[in-house]
C-alpha cells in the first residue's frame, strides 16, 4: 500500500478531502477504493452548481465489475467537476490523489473535522479491513 498523502482528510467511505486556499474542498476516492473497484470505465459526474447534502449521492464510479456511488462527505455546492474523467476515467486508477480528483465543493458550513479521519487513522481503518 502506497503512503497516504499527509495533507488530506479521509472518510470511512474511502473518500479524501483537500482544503483549498479559496475555502473550497477537492474530493476524490482513495487509492484503496480504486484498487478495490478495479479498472474504471466510466464516471458519472454531477453538474456544477448542484447543491449536495452530506451523505447524499454525488457521483457514480463504474468499473467493469460494478457501478458504485460516491457519497458527499460534506454539504455544499459543486463549484467544479473533473471533466477530464469523461474521456479518461482511469486517471482515478493511476493518480487517485492528483489528476483523478472528482469534484470541488464550496462547503455550506464549517467542516466538522472530528467526523473525518487523519491519514494515520485512515491507514489503521483500512489495515483493519484487510485483516
Amino acid at each position, binding site marked *: 500500500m502506497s503512503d497516504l498523502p499527509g495533507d488530506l482528510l479521509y472518510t470511512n467511505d474511502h473518500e479524501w478531502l483537500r482544503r483549498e486556499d479559496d475555502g473550497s474542498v477537492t474530493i476524490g476516492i482513495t487509492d484503496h477504493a480504486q484498487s478495490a473497484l478495479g479498472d474504471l*470505465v*466510466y464516471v*458519472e459526474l454531477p453538474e456544477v452548481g448542484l447543491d449536495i447534502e452530506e451523505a447524499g449521492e454525488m457521483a457514480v464510479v*463504474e468499473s*467493469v*465489475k*460494478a*457501478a458504485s*456511488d460516491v457519497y458527499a462527505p460534506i454539504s455544499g455546492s459543486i463549484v467544479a467537476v473533473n471533466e477530464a474523467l469523461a474521456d479518461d476515467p482511469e486517471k482515478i486508477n493511476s493518480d487517485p490523489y492528483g489528476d483523478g480528483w472528482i469534484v470541488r465543493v464550496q462547503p455550506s458550513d464549517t467542516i466538522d473535522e472530528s467526523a473525518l479521519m487523519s491519514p494515520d487513522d485512515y491507514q489503521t481503518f483500512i489495515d483493519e479491513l484487510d485483516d
Partner: protein
Amino acid sequence: MPFIPHTKKDTSEMLQAIGVDSIADLFDEIPPELMIEHLPHVPPAVGEMEISRLMRRRAKMDGSPMCFIGAGAYEHHIPTAVWDIATRGEFYSAYTPYQAEASQGTLQTIYEYQTMITELTGLDVSNASLYDGASALAEASLMSVRANRRVKSGRILLAPGVNPVYEQVAAAIAGAQGLTFERLEQDAASGNIDFNSLPDGREPVAVVVQQPSFVGTLDDVDRLTNWAHEQGAMLIGIVNPTSLALLRPPGQWGEAGADIAIGEGQPLGVPMSSGGPYFGFMTCKQKHVRQMPGRIVGRTTDLEDKPGFALTLQAREQHIRRSKATSNICTNQGLMVTAATIYMSLLGYDGLVGVANTSQANTALLAEGLCGIEGVDRLYEGPFFHEVALKLDRPVAPLLTALADRDILGGFDLTSTVATNALLVCATETKTKADIEAYVAAFADLMANDSA
C-alpha cells in the same frame, strides 16, 4: 445450450452440502399465512391427451377469420423457416442462457439482432429486447430521466398519436416513480400534433411521438424533434419496424435525430397469438448507453484472439446494483428475438421493403373501397402507412359483430379511445385483392341493409 435437469441424487447432494433437508425448507422464511395452498379459478392439472383435446376445441372456436385489425399488433406472413429454426433445441428455451462459455450461438443471435435493429432505427446501440412495446415506453421514459438529469420536472409530453394503451402502461409503471404524462394538443383535421399550440417552457424531460401514429397517420417528426431539443427535452420515437423499410429512421429525425427509439417487435416474425408473447425493442444514441435498461451483448475476443460474444455493460444491472439498478429488467424476450432475427435475415432489405409497400398499397385499396360506401369517410386527411381511421355515420360495434358473423374481423373500434363512430382498419401483405373486395362488399351490404 441444452438443459439437463438435476437428478434426485444431484439435488440431495446439493441440499446436504448446505445442510438443508428439503427444497421446501429453503422457503421456510415465508410465513405460512402468506402461502397459498390452491389457486381459485385454476383447475387441477390434466394429462397431455386431455389438454390437447381442450386446446383443439378452443382453437376451433376461433375459426379462421380474415383479420383487418391492427392497432398495435399486425398479421404478417411468417416464412415457415422462421419458427422451424427458432424451435430447434439449441434455441428453444423458456430461459435465455447468457453464459458466454456455453451459449455462443444464443449470444451471437442476440448480437445480430441488435445490429439489425440499430440499422432499422438509425441509432447507435440496441439492447437485447424488452417485454413489449408498451412497457418499452415506460422504460424509455424512466431512462430519459436518468439521461437528461438537468431537467427535474419528471414531465413527459406525448404526441396525440401515441397508443393510449402504451400511455396507460407507462403511467402504471413509471407514475409511481414521480413521472407524469401529458398529451400535446391535436390538430382536428390531420389527427396529428397541433404545432400552433405547442407549450413552450413546460420543461419536459422527454417528448414522445409515435410514427406512424396509433391511428395510422404520419406526423411531422422532424419539426417535433427539433422543438423537443429546443425545450431541453429528449425525443423518444415509437416506431413500427415494418414501416422503417419505407420511412426515415428515428436516428435521422430533425437536426439531431431521436435520442431513443422503441417499439413493438411483434411484426417481425412473431404470430399475433391473442396478444402475446411479443417483444419490445429499444435503441439509443451511444452517449446514453449506460442509462439503457436491460441486457446488451457485445462482441469481443477470447484469450486466443478469436471473436466471441458476451454480455457487456452489466455494472448497472440488478444482480450487481440491487435497488440502484437502472431497471429491474434482467432478461430479454430471447425466443421472440431469435424469431425476429431469422425473419429479418430471410426477408432481407428488399423483402422488408416489399412487405411494407404491399401493406401500404393494400390499406390504400381498402380505404378507397370503404370510403366509396355511403356513410363512410376518412377520419383524418393526409398520408397513412398500413392503417387508416374511418368515420362512420353509425355506431361501429354492431357492424363489427355482423362482420364477425361473416368471418371477417373488421377492424378496431376507436369509439372509447379516439372518436365516436370511428373505426381503424389495416390490410397487410397477407390480404389479396379478392380478400379486400370481399370485405368491402360485406361492409357495403351491411351498411345498405342496416342489418347492423
